[in-house]
């Protein structure tokens, strides 16, 4: 690529460095891994820059590259873990578990108070425990506030798949949080 094109790429793409890095940090929880992911994203984006038709779309385009790269890396590293069936996932309800267990008998805002008991690092660890495809979708939703249509475009999948990933990701997150509540003795079972 000639110097002029690279300069144009840097002018358009580097203003999004902060957003990409923050996203990568939320995704990996590790500064080195985050920077590595961001750098690889920029290298791939530079190679594909001539395919970008609309300069106004550079931000979603970069998020598309980083999201797919994160999912592909995770897949090729063989870190996929078997998931509960959708039926089993839907049967689990953190709301019901809290109600049944009643860990704060004197609280008149039981569910809210139990959520408040979780430490920052526990919530982040629960999110990090999710399979990459679910975590990517949830973090894009929470941090970038993308619509389902935008998520579908970024993730390269139908809107129905986005809905399913967000639904299952949240149900998995509920299970993970319950496990942390058990480990820390917030609940008995």
């Amino acid at each position, binding site marked *: 690529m000639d110097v002029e094109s*690279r300069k144009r*790429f*840097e002018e358009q793409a*580097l203003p999004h*460095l*902060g957003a990409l*890095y*923050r996203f990568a*940090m*939320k995704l990996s929880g590790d*500064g080195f891994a*985050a*920077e590595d992911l*961001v*750098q690889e994203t*920029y*290298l791939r984006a*530079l190679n594909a820059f001539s395919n970008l038709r609309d300069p106004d779309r550079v931000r979603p385009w970069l998020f598309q590259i980083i999201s797919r790269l994160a999912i592909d890396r995770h897949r090729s590293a063989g870190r996929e873990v078997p998931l509960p069936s959708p039926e089993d996932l*839907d049967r689990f*309800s*953190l*709301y019901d578990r*809290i109600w049944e267990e009643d860990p704060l008998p004197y*609280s*008149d*805002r*039981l*569910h*809210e*108070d139990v*959520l*408040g008991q*979780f430490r*920052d690092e526990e*919530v*982040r660890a629960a*999110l990090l425990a999710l399979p990459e495809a679910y975590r990517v979708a*949830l*973090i894009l*939703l*929470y*941090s970038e506030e993308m*619509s*389902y249509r935008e998520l579908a475009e970024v993730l390269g999948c139908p809107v129905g798949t986005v*809905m399913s990933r*967000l*639904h299952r990701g*949240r149900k998995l*997150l*509920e299970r993970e949080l319950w496990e942390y509540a058990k480990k820390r003795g917030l609940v008995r079972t």
Partner: protein
Amino acid sequence: MGVREETRIGEDMKSQKLSCEQAVQQFFAYLDRALKGESLEALEAHLAACLDCCDRLEFSRKLDATVKDRLAEAPLPEGIEERIRRALAD
């Protein structure tokens, strides 16, 4: 949300059109403002008649907010832009 009651209100107040199970399935899409048209109307009609589902929905909303709030905004590491510029130039 989570207000103690003698009975779990809502078990016998289900909307005729949508069961509680069906309503719960749509909560996340509702929170994400992705429900439209008849689906949205059906869920809102159910919520208007089912306090239990309202509590559950509020819990899901609070859980979302809890996760969002705990996602730390990491500062950019010193020198990262320069390192990326160098990698791009190589």
